[in-house]
């Protein structure tokens, strides 16, 4: 063990048992002061459990944690914060209806006779925020801020409360590349100011760029902790995360000779400006653009959720009506927000999968039990959903497996066109490539697929043809291939010409 002044946090033989699973299995590693310490691993590797023990949300089963050389244990999140450990959760903890300033001081208000008084504390908070991001006005309502700016408010809150350790769980999941760069600058600034950052992300490029140290976990076990400078490349990390890997590059196909399935003519609404494009049968189309470029709006229009002018011609007929009509005509959507739009969290896998095509498991509106069960089992095997029973509630599955259930739903709908809105958000590397292989497999069987993504890697990995969106305008159409100019794509997608 190193000297304790060098290590702000020492984790020794940490164990956490849940009924039937050892989520954290004898994990030991140290976290150096003033570093960005990255934590990587597939969903279910034990990262979140470890973090929840640190923040007091879970109690450990065995093991010791030393904070600044002293025995540390938090019984609840407040104790963790009092000990200088702040957390930025995936789900932001800001209150939309309050102003930035009120959010900063939430839970820390000084009161006199129950009334809130302004204090030096508030001033310090506002100062810190100004240092980090001068463009955010403290009197503005948080609901007006973008996700990225909300995050910055949370970071300012953590920094101003003199947290020595800030844990960030997937902070970039919904940020655009520009916003990510801004976040990284802020994190580097924090490091200079004596803050240790524990950084969890599925995006390995970020870790290579930002991290000082990286710890890899797999199946609840600690695999390795080493300086990022000693990691050769991302495939080495992937290797450690999932054991044996074979990544297969996508070979885009010549698709111009295929017959068209969908034609969009002059689609416009408040967010979209005169979009015209086409999708051929069996083709995989990518829409690449930053957050706010109109991807989700286009997906919503196509699926009949949002209003628009213009026309979608699908299989020779114009589309009209809502999602149920879209599904009936052969379109299925994997929505952007899995938790709020995709899954039925407290229902079982069996009840989730057939939702979009109940006709297939019923006879005269009565559910055939054996079909119901058979369908669930079939898709669990087909998509390799990790579960021991069809009767597991979705909320108890990892993000990647939840996403596979959402895919199962859409596949069972037996559609000709699949719309995927950010299909691998918050999904681990293993599940990610499984999802890509499902997509390729489907297109080989003649299903057309539209992928909306703000991850260029994802688009390049899976699409035949790419449309670039910026601010609701279709900027360019590019054929994917080995010689595709990624720098140019990013240039265009960020507003360049």
């Amino acid at each position, binding site marked *: 063990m190193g000297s304790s002044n060098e290590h702000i946090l020492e984790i020794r033989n940490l164990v956490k048992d849940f009924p039937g699973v050892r989520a954290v299995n004898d994990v030991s590693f140290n976290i150096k002061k003033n570093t960005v310490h990255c934590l990587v691993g597939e969903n279910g590797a034990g990262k979140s459990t470890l973090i929840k023990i640190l923040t007091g949300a879970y109690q450990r089963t065995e093991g010791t944690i030393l904070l600044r050389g002293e025995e540390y244990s938090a019984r609840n999140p407040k104790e963790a914060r009092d000990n200088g450990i702040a957390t930025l959760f995936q789900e932001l903890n800001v209150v939309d209806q309050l102003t930035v300033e009120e959010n900063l001081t939430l839970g820390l208000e000084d009161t006199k006779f129950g009334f809130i008084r302004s204090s030096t504390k508030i001033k310090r908070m506002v100062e810190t925020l100004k240092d980090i991001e001068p463009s955010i006005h403290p009197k503005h309502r948080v609901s007006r801020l973008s996700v990225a700016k909300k995050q910055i408010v949370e970071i300012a809150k953590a920094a101003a409360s003199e947290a020595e350790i800030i844990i960030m769980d997937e902070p970039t999941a919904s940020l655009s590349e520009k916003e990510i760069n801004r976040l990284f600058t802020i994190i580097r600034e924090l490091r200079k100011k004596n803050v240790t950052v524990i950084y969890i992300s599925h995006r390995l490029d970020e870790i290579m760029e930002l991290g000082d140290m990286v710890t890899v976990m797999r199946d609840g076990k600690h695999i390795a902790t080493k300086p990022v400078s000693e990691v050769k490349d991302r495939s080495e990390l992937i290797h450690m995360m999932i054991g044996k890997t*074979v990544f297969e590059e996508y070979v885009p196909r010549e698709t111009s000779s295929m017959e068209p399935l969908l034609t969009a003519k002059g689609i416009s609404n408040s967010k979209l400006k005169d979009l015209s494009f086409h999708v051929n049968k069996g083709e995989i189309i990518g829409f690449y653009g930053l957050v706010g470029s109109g991807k989700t709006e286009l997906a919503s229009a196509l699926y009949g959720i949002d209003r628009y002018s213009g026309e979608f011609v699908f299989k020779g007929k114009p589309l009209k009506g809502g999602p149920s009509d879209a599904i009936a005509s052969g379109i299925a959507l994997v929505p952007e927000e899995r938790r709020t*739009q995709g899954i039925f969290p407290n229902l079982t896998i069996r009840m989730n999968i057939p939702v979009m095509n109940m006709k297939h498991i019923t006879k005269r509106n*009565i559910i055939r039990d054996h079909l119901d069960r058979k369908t669930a*089992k079939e898709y669990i095997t087909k998509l390799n959903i990790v579960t*021991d029973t069809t009767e597991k*509630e979705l909320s108890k599955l990892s993000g990647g497996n939840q996403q596979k259930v959402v895919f199962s739903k859409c596949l069972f709908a037996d559609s000709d066109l699949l719309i995927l809105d950010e299909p691998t958000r918050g999904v681990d590397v293993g599940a990610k490539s499984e999802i890509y292989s499902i997509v390729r497999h489907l297109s080989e069987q003649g299903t057309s697929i539209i992928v909306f993504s703000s991850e260029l890697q994802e688009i390049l990995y899976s699409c035949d043809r790419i449309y670039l969106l910026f601010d609701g305008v279709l900027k360019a159409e590019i054929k994917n291939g080995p010689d595709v100019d990624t720098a140019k794509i990013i240039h265009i997608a960020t507003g360049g010409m």
Partner: protein
Amino acid sequence: MTVLTTDQEGMKQIKHVSDSKGTISNLTFIIFAMVGVLVIVFTIASMIVPRFFDLATMSNLLVQQSELIIIGIGVTFIVITGRLDLSVGGVVAMAGVLSAYFAQANTRAEFSLSSGLGLPYWLAVVLTLICCMGIGAVNALFIVKFKIASIIVTLGGMSLARGIAMIIARGAQRNVGLPPEFGFFGRFSIIGTINLAVCFMIVLVLIALFVEKKTVFGRKLFLIGSNKTAADLSGIKTDRQIAQLYIISSFLAGVTGILMASKFCSGNSSIAGGYEFDALVITVLGGTSIHGGFGSVICAVIGAFILGILSTSVNMLGYPPASQLLVRGFVIVIAILAQRYALNKRNV
């Protein structure tokens, strides 16, 4: 084509996927737990309350609670979708008064409480049920079309229905000049006091259980309650289903109202006060979650009997009605806390 293969994934794939949990589901667990509570409450009542363990008491209990359970069926369905229906008590009263008013002989008398429309009883019943479904339709319109919270809309529906009852019965009751058939449902009995309400209740509960477990309609209740947005995006016509539920709920409340009026041979505008809350209480007491997506009609049946035994016992022990409320409140809070605790323990 596989892009990625790992040793563990391979193993997981081979592993047998079972279609049972190995243990019982959370719902079955809660139902068993509440049956346990029911048995305990019943045993204690039988021991400490004199004349409780008695055929007459039992059958009275069954009859009283049957009326509540019929209402509870509709309310349970709505609660499973994550919504509320507080209009049912008012609809019961409205149904009773309307069925009397429609059936009363038309004497053209000055004193209008004794003179009705003089329609044949069957027509009176049909018209009453249509009016009740009208209240449900109004509820549905505001909830589905205007997107107003169901608690507010159905509070309005409650006043609307009760108001109609009050106006037509002049704040009192209509019990003069009713045709002999009016009392038919109420008089009908199998043994002792076991009447038509009990038979209806049993049949309706069986149908409801079938609908809930085996039909697409039932499956959609849970989907809407678990995540309405996801249900919409999955092509389920959630608005239509929610509207249907409010109409069904008002219909069932109407049936109860007609049965109760028949039993008392009177359309009483102040009957069934607080039934909307009792119906909600038995639903939640039995284990249906107010957050939606979890529950069963059988929960309402269990809840109704727990509540019924408590009320009857306190009554028979001679305590004033005020302490009855106190005991009920206490038991309800304890029972719901215990459910949450048991579920949390189970799902760590």
